[in-house]
């Protein structure tokens, strides 16, 4: 316990790490402030830059991007009515009306403070919940892991984006992508078409850069005519005591909601912010102000989306199941740097794990300072002309994919998955389920295969394992619960 606290505290005494967090926070805020370039794309693009770093530093960079970009999406949401990240979409509803009334500084102040509180709360929740979950996860064998990954996939039905069916199709497509390459247990080639570079399977990083960054580039290509109105802002002001009195309940509620939603596999900041906003409105004494410039609305959404960042890291690190799209990229970062996510991470590399938690705490404090003093400057970043910004993103995407294995195949994968991702989005499919499915794919197949071997081919024996049964029942509830509930309500009415 003391070792863990010491490891967490050591981050605050490491000048290089503090410098790294400061620089990355600035980078993350810029990425988050740029419409289209969210935390996931930013983390995917920066992954290759972290290859030569120490594991702690590399994961620190990725998690700092995660928390700072998640917050920074609110800057453009408030100032130009364009959410920098999808998790800030609901912040537009009240942030922009406030900005139009000349209270942009107040709105940003509420967003910064709420995000910081949400982020710090979730880091402590992560530090407490992760080891507890790890102690349970020690008991997991292949049947339990198989059922758990199934639960993770079923959760795709509830995330925002394309809708339940499309998300599930995307998730299964991602799992199928994971079957490309040599079969792990027999070495028989599958869907390789003579490309021996695919023997180990598709490279996660290339696929993610393609799905997130390159597809976004094509989305931007189709939206060049859209422009955003810019609101003038004199300075950021801290919320007044009256404001704090008004928002504290919404912030605390959203801290809990965000952390809980983040812990659920595959859920993320976007869902958390929607629920946080909705609950803030439900419990507010002035629900009529929502949508017209309510600071409770901003606080509810922003505290929840940043609280989800820490929550999402719990299943990512403890179970190897990404808590969100960005967590999926961080998971790849952990693997690339030789840190195998799972319960043993908490006994074998406890210093590293808690140093990462400490870095996340530091990042939350850092963007409080940077957000309060420099938000106005960062908002200007969003005015970088698209014809300059996106060609650079194109170059970084290509080189980022190439750098990892120095293989041209990875470059082609970026281009191919960029086009696939674009058309998926065009037809209403979210790309995050594909990324999550790809990561979970190996786990699903390997654990199903091992379970069948354990039970001599009797697959139904998986249902006799209590923990596995719980996850399978939860999966069934997730998949069929809402439809059954709706039918029940219709009959009752």
């Amino acid at each position, binding site marked *: 316990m003391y070792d863990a606290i010491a490891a967490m505290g050591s981050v605050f005494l490491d000048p290089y790490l503090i410098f790294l967090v400061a620089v990355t926070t600035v980078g993350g805020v810029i990425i988050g402030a740029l419409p289209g370039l969210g935390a996931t794309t930013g983390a995917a693009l920066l992954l290759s830059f972290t290859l030569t770093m120490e594991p702690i530093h590399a994961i620190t960079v990725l998690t700092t991007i995660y928390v700072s970009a998640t917050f920074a999406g609110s800057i453009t949401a408030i100032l130009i009515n364009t959410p920098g990240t999808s998790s800030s979409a609901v912040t537009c509803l009240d942030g922009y009306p406030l900005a139009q009334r000349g209270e942009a500084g107040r709105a940003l102040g509420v967003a910064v403070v709420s995000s910081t509180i949400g982020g710090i709360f979730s880091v402590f929740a992560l530090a407490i919940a992760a080891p507890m979950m790890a102690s349970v996860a020690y008991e997991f064998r292949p049947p339990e892991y198989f059922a758990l990954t199934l639960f993770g996939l079923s959760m795709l039905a509830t995330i925002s984006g394309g809708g339940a069916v499309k998300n599930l*199709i995307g998730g299964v497509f991602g799992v199928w992508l994971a079957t490309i390459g040599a079969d792990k247990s027999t070495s028989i080639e599958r869907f390789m078409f003579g490309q021996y570079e695919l023997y180990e399977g598709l490279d996660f990083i290339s696929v993610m850069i393609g799905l997130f960054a390159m597809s976004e580039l094509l989305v931007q290509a189709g939206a060049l005519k859209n422009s955003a109105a810019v609101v003038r802002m004199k300075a950021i002001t801290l919320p007044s005591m009256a404001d704090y009195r008004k928002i504290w309940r919404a912030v605390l509620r959203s801290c809990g909601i965000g952390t809980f939603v983040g812990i659920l596999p595959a859920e993320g900041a976007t869902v958390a912010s929607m629920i946080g906003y909705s609950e803030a409105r439900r419990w507010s004494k002035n629900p009529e102000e929502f949508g017209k410039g309510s600071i409770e609305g901003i606080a509810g959404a922003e505290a929840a989306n940043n609280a989800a960042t820490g929550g999402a890291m719990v299943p990512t690190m403890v179970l190897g199941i990404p808590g969100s799209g960005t967590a999926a990229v961080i998971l790849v970062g952990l693997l690339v740097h030789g840190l195998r996510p799972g319960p043993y991470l908490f006994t074998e590399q406890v210093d590293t794990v808690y140093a990462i938690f400490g870095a996340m705490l530091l990042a939350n404090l850092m963007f409080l300072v940077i957000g309060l003093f420099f938000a106005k400057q960062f908002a200007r970043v969003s005015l970088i002309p698209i014809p300059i910004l996106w060609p*650079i993103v194109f170059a970084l995407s290509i080189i980022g994919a190439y750098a990892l294995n120095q293989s041209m195949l990875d470059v082609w994968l970026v*281009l191919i998955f960029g086009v696939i991702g674009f058309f998926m989005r065009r037809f209403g499919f979210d790309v995050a389920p594909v990324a999550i499915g790809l990561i979970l794919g190996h786990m699903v197949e390997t654990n199903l295969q091992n379970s069948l071997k354990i039970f001599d081919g009797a697959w139904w024996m998986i249902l006799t394992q209590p923990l596995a049964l719980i996850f399978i029942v939860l999966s069934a509830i997730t998949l069929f619960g809402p439809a059954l509930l709706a039918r029940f309500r219709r009959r009752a009415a």
Partner: protein
Amino acid sequence: MSHLEELQSDLPDRETGTREKPALADLLVPVFIFVFAAVVVGLALTFDRAPAAFVGFGMQPRAFPIFLMGAVIILNLFLIRETIKNPPERREPLDGMVWITIALMGVFALVTTFADMMLALAITIFAKSLLWGERRVWVALALAILTPLTILLFFDLVLEVRFPRGLLTNIYYG
């Protein structure tokens, strides 16, 4: 309707415009998914079979992809039902710039394969910048020269990444 959809529909100012009947184009997606699943199953059936002693009570390599495509086909039936019941909003025609940008990706691939990766980046960046609305040619040119150059120097000197040899990289590497 999922919990999230309920919440989303509860939010103010949400546009929920849908049409009464699905267009034929809306059903192209499920058709494409069916064809894709059928092709995958067809390919999976061509995989070598592992000896029984090797696989034991586990699955043959072809089994899991076929199982997945079975799941996709079932989900696709739900998608068709959903599309018919709630036709999606009419999509704007695809902007021509998207096709141009995809074509530029093709140009990048060709120039990389037959000439040089850095040259390909420079050409693509220059063309993309101008086509996407940059009116100052010198800005697009500066971007096209400086971006690949910075990338080459940074990745070579700091990250020690070697780029594939070509017209320009040969000059750099000697």
